């Protein structure tokens, strides 16, 4: 059913309200053909509703859904070239695996389904299980049946609603690679809904971060992580430290900030708020970008780096890295992740330290928003 070119999914001004509750505020979104697209957000953010409007399981209150050139907004689900991998799979309990996978083909009046179904079951490595019932399979196997049942129809778009949510961590990692492999192989557009930022970043080419029925930011995983536009995105994807600073002025391509009695530098193009002197800004920095030096060696910190002094409050050894919590005058509970390459034995709670980082990694956000937005949702 794939028709070569012009197969983008285009949502135009699409919105959904239930009574007085707005699940999805009118939004525009284009999913390029053949891409792996993730809708990321906490539960209740409107991501599943958006997905179900593409599937036709939910009627949008306003706006339109286009698949390529075709307006499918008013089409019922069984007339759309779109298939879904449902949350907790929704495999038909009264049919065996073979019939589950053959269901879509049979409904479209295809008589000889055996060859196709067997090929599809081999693709997901379930050839042996064809005559079992869904409840006799493990969670990972059920997941693959659900995938096979949708993929066999060669949909224009495959929708995945939290497809890995019911699996344990190890299996989830494995299935993330598996899904990515299959998507590359079949070249179908995947739209994937998840609340797991790691899952979204591992698999997707493009991620739309949703919050309270709106798309907060859209971009590649690396772009979202490095250049978050809001504190919600900064906190929901990974961890961020924020320093409330005042803008002192500009210096070439940089903006100079004052935080406490220190001075910080921020690249102008990474500042999301007008660089008017005197204005407030939230200067953000990721924990793994920061280096930690004992106060006794403060002189060894190179010039030109942003630096802050503080005291180690807590240290947690996680194997690959050590996660420190540092108290400093400009920011309580500064998180710092240090790779365990050469561990300095003096870096224990109570030690005075200097935190320093390359100014290019600093990002500046509008100080009017809540610095802790998205922290709880990400937990």
């Amino acid at each position, binding site marked *: 059913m794939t028709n070569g070119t012009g197969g983008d999914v285009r949502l135009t001004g699409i919105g959904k309200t239930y009574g007085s509750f707005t699940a999805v505020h009118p939004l525009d979104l284009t999913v390029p053909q053949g891409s792996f697209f993730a809708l990321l957000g906490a539960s209740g953010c409107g991501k599943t509703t958006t997905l179900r409007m593409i599937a036709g399981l939910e009627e949008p209150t306003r706006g339109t859904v286009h698949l390529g050139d075709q307006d499918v907004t008013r089409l019922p689900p069984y007339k759309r070239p779109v298939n879904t991998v449902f949350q*907790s799979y929704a495999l*038909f309990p009264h049919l065996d695996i073979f019939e589950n996978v053959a269901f879509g083909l049979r409904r479209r009046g295809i008589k000889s389904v055996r060859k196709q179904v067997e090929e599809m079951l081999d693709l997901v490595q379930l050839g042996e299980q064809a005559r079992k019932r869904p409840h*006799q399979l493990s969670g990972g196997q059920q997941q693959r049946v659900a995938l096979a049942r949708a993929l066999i*129809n060669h949909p224009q778009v495959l929708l995945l609603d939290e497809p890995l949510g019911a699996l344990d961590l190890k299996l989830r990692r494995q299935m993330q690679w598996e899904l990515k492999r299959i998507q590359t192989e079949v070249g179908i557009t995947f739209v994937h809904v998840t609340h797991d930022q790691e899952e979204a970043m591992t698999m997707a080419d493009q991620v739309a971060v949703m919050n309270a029925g709106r798309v907060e930011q859209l971009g590649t995983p690396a772009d979202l992580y490095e250049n978050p536009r809001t504190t919600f995105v900064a906190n929901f994807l990974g961890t961020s430290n924020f320093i409330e600073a005042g803008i002192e002025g500009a210096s070439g391509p940089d903006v100079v900030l004052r935080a406490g009695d220190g001075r910080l530098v921020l690249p102008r193009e990474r500042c999301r708020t007008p660089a008017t002197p005197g204005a407030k800004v939230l200067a953000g920095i990721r924990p793994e970008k920061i280096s930690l030096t004992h106060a006794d060696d403060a002189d060894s910190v190179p010039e030109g780096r942003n630096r802050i002094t503080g005291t180690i409050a807590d240290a947690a050894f996680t194997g690959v890295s050590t996660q420190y919590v540092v108290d400093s005058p400009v920011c309580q509970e500064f998180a710092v992740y240090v790779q365990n390459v050469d561990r300095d034995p003096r870096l224990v709670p109570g030690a005075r330290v200097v935190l320093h980082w390359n100014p290019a990694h600093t990002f500046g956000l509008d100080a009017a928003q809540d610095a802790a937005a998205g922290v709880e949702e990400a937990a």
Partner: protein
Amino acid sequence: MAFVTWFKRNLVVIAGLLTLAYLLLPNVVVTVFSFNKPVGRFNYAWQEFSADAWTDPCGVADLCGSLALSLQLACWATLGATALGTAIAFALARYRFRARGAVNALIFLPMAMPEVVMAASLLTLFLNLGAQLGFWTILIAHIMFCLSFVVTAVKARVMSMDPRLEQAAQDLYAGPFQTFLRVTLPIAAPGIAAGALLAFALSFDDFIITNFTAGSTVTFPMFVWGSAQRGTPVQINVIGTAMFVVAVLLVLLSMVIGSRRTKSRA
């Protein structure tokens, strides 16, 4: 001492088995007395062994006729109550509509009403309408009181069904009718079967409501009731025993088949 400990630990098992014995004792008596050769009209005291009644189960006037009538009534009542009840159950479980509370109450009340009250009021209606009491009035009554039980059984099954299954069917190109036929109905089938079985049992065994609505028509329970006044033929025990044995065998058979199937699939 060891015995006292054992007794204390298994007290609930012993009490439970005694209750089970209490439940089954009458069936044992019915079976034993189906081989009795009573003196006089009543089969209440043991005389001597005889298989006469087993060789001639229809040897009593009207008995097999009433049995056939009861079976016929039960079949039609099951059909009617299952059809009407399943439709209501689907409406309750799958749709929003006005006056839900009133509908629920109307389903619930017949189950919470003593049979004699329903029976008496139904007779009042039939008398007021001048209806001829007989097969049709019994059937109407049976469908009425079986209906609620079917609704309850089917509704429970449909409610516990994941709505995503139907959405998945729609997503896989099944239109509304195909979705109902291929997914909803097969998954609801055990509930519908349970409701139908219950309706059959209730209708077949009903006496109180039938007694009020039958006029001079005699169903099997009414035949038994009449015989309790006029004299109980041994053939009643034969039929009671046969029904018990057939039912137990059918259930055991289905259980064996069920466990085989799961074993061979596992």
